[in-house]
């Protein structure tokens, strides 16, 4: 059993038995609130075949520093939950299939595809979207570098690239080619802004751009 599952008190097997779609890797129970709207029991016993859903489940999570409570069906992805329920629209829905990276957000500091995560999996966790890194008047270094290097055109892939770049540079302040490939190979742009994005990343070592 993974640490995550231990924390949630819900085994992978029992979760799948519950009939909810998708695989569990996040801390479900940690953010589940007692007495949720659908009447799903709070998940406390790993041995019991507890179920959540299909009706809405009340959860709590932190988004860009603010605690948010909402009731979502287990099938709602983190991306759709952010965009449709919480009006956090920085992360974009493009491929909706874990390929393009436009929905990249940080979960407890780690970059993930929000389209490939159920929102209930992020219960009890801390989500940082591109809006949480900085604002137009107080940009994160990476956001500033995207502007200065013209690493954006239409800008629809940009939120995902900015978050992925910030995560990459936080771990590798002067990334190697292999680290760049691993860190940004999961993001796609259609306008063709890779030259600028590469300048952001390669300028990071000496250019004052830092991640995190």
């Amino acid at each position, binding site marked *: 059993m993974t640490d995550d599952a231990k924390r949630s008190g819900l085994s992978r097997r029992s979760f799948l038995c519950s009939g909810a779609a998708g695989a569990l890797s996040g801390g479900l129970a940690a953010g589940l609130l007692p007495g949720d709207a659908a009447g799903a029991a709070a998940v406390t016993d790993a041995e019991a075949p507890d179920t959540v859903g299909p009706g809405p489940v009340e959860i709590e999570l932190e988004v860009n520093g603010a605690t948010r409570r909402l009731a979502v069906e287990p099938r709602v992805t983190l991306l759709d939950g952010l965009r449709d329920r919480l009006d956090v629209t920085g992360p*974009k829905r493009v491929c909706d299939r874990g390929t393009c990276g436009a929905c990249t957000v940080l979960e407890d500091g780690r970059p993930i595809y929000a389209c490939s995560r159920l929102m209930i999996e992020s219960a009890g966790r801390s989500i940082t979207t591109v809006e949480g890194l900085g604002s137009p008047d107080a940009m994160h270094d990476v956001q500033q570098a995207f502007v200065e290097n013209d690493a954006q055109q239409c800008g629809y892939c940009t939120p995902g690239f900015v978050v992925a770049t910030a995560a990459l540079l936080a771990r590798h302040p002067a990334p190697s080619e292999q680290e760049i490939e691993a860190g940004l190979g999961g993001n796609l742009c259609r306008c063709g*802004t890779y030259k600028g994005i590469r300048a952001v990343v390669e300028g990071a070592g000496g250019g004052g751009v830092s991640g995190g």
Partner: protein
Amino acid sequence: MADYSWPEADRRALIGSRPARLDGPVKSTGFAKYPSDQNPSGLLAAKILTCPHAHARIVGIDTSAAEAMPGVRVVHVIQGEGAEIQWAGDEVAAVAAVTEEVARDAVRAIRVDYEVLPHFVTEENRDGAPDARAAGERAEGDPDAAFAAAHRTVERTLGMPQMAHMCLEPHGQVCSWDGDELEVHASTQAVSTLAGQFATELGVPASQVRIRTEYMGGGFGSKFSPDRWGIVGAELARKAGAPVKLFLERDQEVTVAGSRPSAFARIRAAADEQGRLVAWDSDSWGSGGLPGTGQTPLPYVFSRLPNRRLRHTSVPTNLAGSRAWRAPNHPQACFLTMAVLDDLADELGLDPIDFLDRNLDLTGRADTYREQLAIAGEMASWKERWQPRGRTREGAVHRGLGVSVHTWGGRGHSSNCDVTVHPDGAVEARIGSQDIGTGTRTIVAQVLAETFGLELHEVRVSLGDNVYPQSGPSGGSSTVGGVTASTRRAAQDALREVLVHVAPRLGAEPEQLVAGGGRVFVDGDASRGMSWREAAAQIGGAPISVQGRNPGPGRLISSGVGGVQIAEVEVDVETGVVRVERMIAVQDCGLVINRRLAESQVYGGLIMGVGYALYEEWIPDPVSGRLLNADMEFYKLAGLVDVGSLEVHMMTGPGYDERGVIGLGEPPVISPGAAISNAVANAIGVRVPYLPLTPDRVLDALAGRGGPA
């Protein structure tokens, strides 16, 4: 008549400089609200049911189960019983519901019975096409005699398949009604023309349709119309009495919302002993889905080639109709032509740059191409590094260089711009254009600020709304010329009005005054002047508002550009994998407004070009008639690490600047397919006749196995 012109080079503060795009901060922080980000109060989500068959007749449709579902507000039948569907993915019904999840459930609950009819989706084999039709034949000179007398002739069958626009923001809109007034947040390239199209379909006056597109996530030629899903979205909103968001799912986006027509051709070309082109014969075909497709401009660039015969066949298929894809027809014509010319150069034993150079009088701009070929060749160290085909290898890895040339028009479109100067010195422009990622907002601001001698942040530009004066759709590289010309005319006129008020205070004639550095002063005597704010205060209590138009007087824009690109590749002849190591682009576009944004356009063109040269294609399944790769896993875009080193040289300065502003979006995407294919041929010694250059096609070519058709 007043004079309209660009400032001389030594008087430009902003034009030709490299300011960062003005909407960079809101985009890089995720604060920019795209049409798909609009979440008005009471919003409903809409989904569309599409037909799974490439050709079918609807024999029955039952929406009762969907209508009975909790949370469903409206079920709308788009095509009912008896309708003949001509492509998989065509829209059949739509649902508006309280959430996306409910709308998807409801769409799945609609039962449609089809009579499945025969379909055809694989046009590369035109012999099997049921509806292929001759679409033009013409000849000039005496091709038969010229071929008979020629020194060398090559014959090739080449082709490239249909491919997708793959806009990252899918097509769609949020529609809200207030009584009989409709507001549409649309992801569009055509803010000013959409209202009329919505109005006609919906039976309301165009004056009651508001279109808003502050930002949009890519169009590339596919977003000029409301589309059926736009009208359906408005109908759903009207019936529901609530705002409705309807954006296509990714599979729908890939399947129906934009593709580039395919192009195939059997081509013969011949040259004389001096390496001069003397004859051309092409038998081409292609498809843009159900409408088929017209003739691409062959022979490309070398359009004065004597003794030519062209035949074309249009091949309709049961696939959604194609849309204008960045530089319509040019990438196809460029690949077909430049590949054949490259093979002919090889047959003649000539360096391809030398061969192109010998034939530049057959083009419309020999001097430009000659200069560009020299610059590009220098950048690539072509003379030192180019070798005849198949001679540069290290074990399994072969290296090659390829070259291509291209052209485009790029004349500015019809545009109107209102410029207002307020008595407090505030300056603003309002223009019914749209910034599709090219930087339109920024260049309009540059022209405005330049004209009034202000800093970029001191002027305000409003666009992306059809309440502003009409400006053309952003297509064909026509926006930069249109909006800079209309803005410059309005700004020059508004400034002249201000100067009439200022002149008496400075004891000068208005014609003696200029604006610069935040001041208005007597030209040649900067001490006789005042601050801009003080100058604006002279106009009295009411603002000055002037409309500028394009077309109009003065030489602000023109059209017609040339470009040269060189590709350097590595090909692993054991795996067939092609890697682009380096792309070089030399491009002119007249007077460059913003160097940084211009270069970004060219980089973007190169990158998109690497995509269609190596990876991108629609793959229709002949059995089901459906696309096998209507997603982003198997419809592959080039990634950050796939594009190699990119180098851009913009032709600017004397000889270019005085031509005025010319569009740049299309030209750089035209040559990459040809240049990369030519580099691969140079590396491995044989032509891979088909794009994209996937490993199987490379290995087939190395094994001497066929091409398309």
